[in-house]
């Protein structure tokens, strides 16, 4: 440690041993609570018997992986996971950013503050509740279809047509999480120096030019790390949302990795099998995020590493 300090001529890092001191506790935490349990991932290659324990169970190599990859359902689940997540990314990702930017443009403090609070409330609703609301709104006798029929239109099979169901899935996702997600962008916006805006105003820049040339560049680092992290999650998907919003008519669309693992692995007490699929997802996730991060850094972004 001391040698390193001596070798540094950079004032910037003069006190950098203190930086390592700061890292001690977080690293110990990382090892104890994140990496120690990861040893358990080895059950993916074992015939796990909970009474023999992780170590003493028999090794069986890639049997679980072979079983998973051999089933047609598994690949359908992967395809569905990717489609639903890509939609979330394309539609769901920009919305909180747009909301935050325009909320920032809003002058009326009351509207600004109340809408912030209220838009983040849906985050507290569980998917069971949301699924109930979705049915009241989108079912064949639901609010929207009643309205459509009154206006002389035809009722739309929102929940039974797989394609339209996906839209419902994405829109409810936005509804549930956009208000919560925009908080992080609002926080990022606070660091913009107001004098920048004033200068732009004096230069005669219009509102949208100001957004384009001042606000967005300021948000850029936050947007890029959020995008990288979201891209890394493209293989993982929650259980509740597709399961509770889905129904048997859209099962071929709504069956995703998590629901697949749940019925085939966890419900049958097959932790080894579930772990194997989880491991597969994790590896893909990590590889993806490393690639995306490399790309981002090539384009001059900070990246997350």
């Amino acid at each position, binding site marked *: 440690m001391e040698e390193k300090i001596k070798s540094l001529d950079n004032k910037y890092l003069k006190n950098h041993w203190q930086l390592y001191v700061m890292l001690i506790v977080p690293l110990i935490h990382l090892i104890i609570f994140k990496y120690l349990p990861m040893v358990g991932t080895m059950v993916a290659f074992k015939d796990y018997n*909970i009474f023999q324990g992780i170590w003493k169970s028999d090794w069986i190599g890639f049997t679980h992986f072979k079983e998973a990859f051999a089933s047609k359902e598994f690949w359908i689940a992967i395809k569905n996971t990717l489609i639903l997540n890509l939609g979330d990314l394309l539609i769901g990702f920009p919305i909180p950013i747009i909301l935050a930017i325009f909320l920032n443009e809003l002058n009326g403090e009351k509207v600004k503050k109340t809408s912030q609070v209220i838009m983040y409330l849906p985050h507290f609703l569980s998917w069971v509740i949301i699924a109930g609301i979705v049915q009241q709104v989108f079912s*064949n006798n639901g609010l929207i279809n009643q309205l459509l029929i009154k206006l002389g239109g035809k009722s739309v099979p929102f929940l039974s047509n797989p394609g339209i169901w996906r839209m419902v899935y994405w829109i409810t996702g936005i509804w549930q999480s956009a208000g919560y997600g925009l908080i992080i962008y609002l926080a990022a916006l606070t660091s913009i120096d107001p004098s920048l805006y004033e200068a732009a105003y004096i230069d005669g820049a219009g509102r949208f030019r100001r957004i384009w040339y001042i606000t967005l560049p300021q948000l850029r680092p936050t947007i890029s790390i959020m995008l990288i992290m979201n891209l890394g999650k493209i293989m993982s998907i929650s259980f509740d949302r597709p399961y509770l919003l889905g129904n048997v008519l859209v099962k071929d669309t709504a069956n995703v990795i998590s629901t697949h693992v749940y019925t085939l692995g966890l419900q049958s*007490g097959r932790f080894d099998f579930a772990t194997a699929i989880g491991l597969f997802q994790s590896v893909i996730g990590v590889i993806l995020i490393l690639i995306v991060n490399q790309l981002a850094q090539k384009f001059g972004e900070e990246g997350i590493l």
Partner: protein
Amino acid sequence: MKKKLVSTLSLLLAIVLLVGCGKSASKGEESTKEEESTKEVIRSEKGEDKEAPVELNVMIWDRGNAAPGTTAEDNTTSKFIQESVLEECNVKVNFVPVPRSGSNDKVNVMMAGGNAPDIVFSYSRNLFGDYAKKGGLTDLTSYVDEFGSQLKETLGEEILSIGVIGGKQYAIPAKRDTQKIRHAGYIRKDWVEALGKELPKSKQELIDILYEFKEKDPGKVGDKLVSWAMGGNQDTEKYFLNFVGSYVDMSNEKDQYIYTENIKAVHPSAKEGFKVMNKLYNDGIIKEDFPIDTNDDIYKQDITNGYAGFILEDNMRPIDQHWIEALVSNVPEAEFVAINVLEDPNGKLITPADPLHGMYIMVPSVSEKKAEAAIKYLNWLANTENSMKVMFTPDYTTDENGVPIAISRDELDEQGYAGTPNDFTIVTQYWSYSGNKDALVSEWLSTYPFLSKEYFESFYDAVTSGLYTEPVLQEILESETKYLANLDKLIIEFAYKSIIADPSNFEKTYEEEYNKLIQAGLQEILDERAAYYDNNVAK
């Protein structure tokens, strides 16, 4: 700003420290508690020549409904048990709360961690079989023989045998209350009467009435009418199983072993039943687009608003979930009565009943030393009188039918009795008056005062006629552990899709969905069950 920051941070630090103190304080408490308990043992050793009592940790479900000031594991009910069992069996019972929902998962991790209570239980046969097969359970055979005379008497050979796997008693199955059919039909009696008819007595009569409901709208509800209401729940086969199952001839014993519970829906003869349901659906008798209603919300609304003419449901759900209460307050003349009329191809009424056994009570293999105490405790609970004292409070009184007189919830809360005493009476729920029609009617009347005596008398007749108890295999089949949980879901999908298919497409949909089941392991299960029958039962 800086000052503010410093004060915030020091506040945070203070909180962290406080939490730290809290922890060490609680640790101190724990150790004194332990000391106390060891002292207690010594004291009782000195006081009497009795041996020190054996400590037994028993799982108890926590439903978050304990009386104010009490907990699920520590209340008047638990104290009564602890005192009596210490007195009579010299066993010191400690209750370990396990939240009711997620109970299986929690038991699972505790089993994996080797720190599960000495007595655990679950309704899941899959879980029980898995533990037994993997060597996680104590073989209770000899202990039951030695210390479980009351257990044997109360449960009987038939129920006890359900806890046997490979010849070893790995679990004590609980005994349920009066056996009823699992799913019952409910029909709007006032509508039937408005048509000038009597309640249906056969499947065909029922179908005819359902068509008349649609044509004549006896309840005058207009276009909201649903002759046969169904929900889209993805966890239950109650909406179709009894109907399609009634097309299956179960007189062959081998079939009885192979096609149990939901597997019955994939019996080749059940296809005819699906065809009929498919026709009913396309004729507008069955609720349109019911599979979308996954929460059953619209289904419940159809019932309680009086739009629904007929449903298939869990035997008492419309009554005890307050649906009928709500229906009657919306439509005062409504009468929604239970019927049981789906006869089999031979014209006989054999409706699948609730199983005789309830949950599986197990002793983990790491608790083998406690097996004797565990059986002594369970044996104490197996005494109906003891269990009734736990269930209805120690000094309960009875009415003329022998039914304990209900004490109001408020009064029970005030005295600190358990929120759900049934969670303590794990061995038997079959009371001294169970199986007695008059007694049960009087019990139901006091619980659901909004219905009449006549209502419950006919209800009793409907749900206790044609009872058919399905056999339970005394082995855990490999294929079942592997595929059954997934198949449970797929069978519901198979059924719903077959019912709502376009009639011209029915054959194709049925075949396609059936093949999906075969690919998902159905064939393995059918084969292994057949082999089990040939090897164990047929001999």
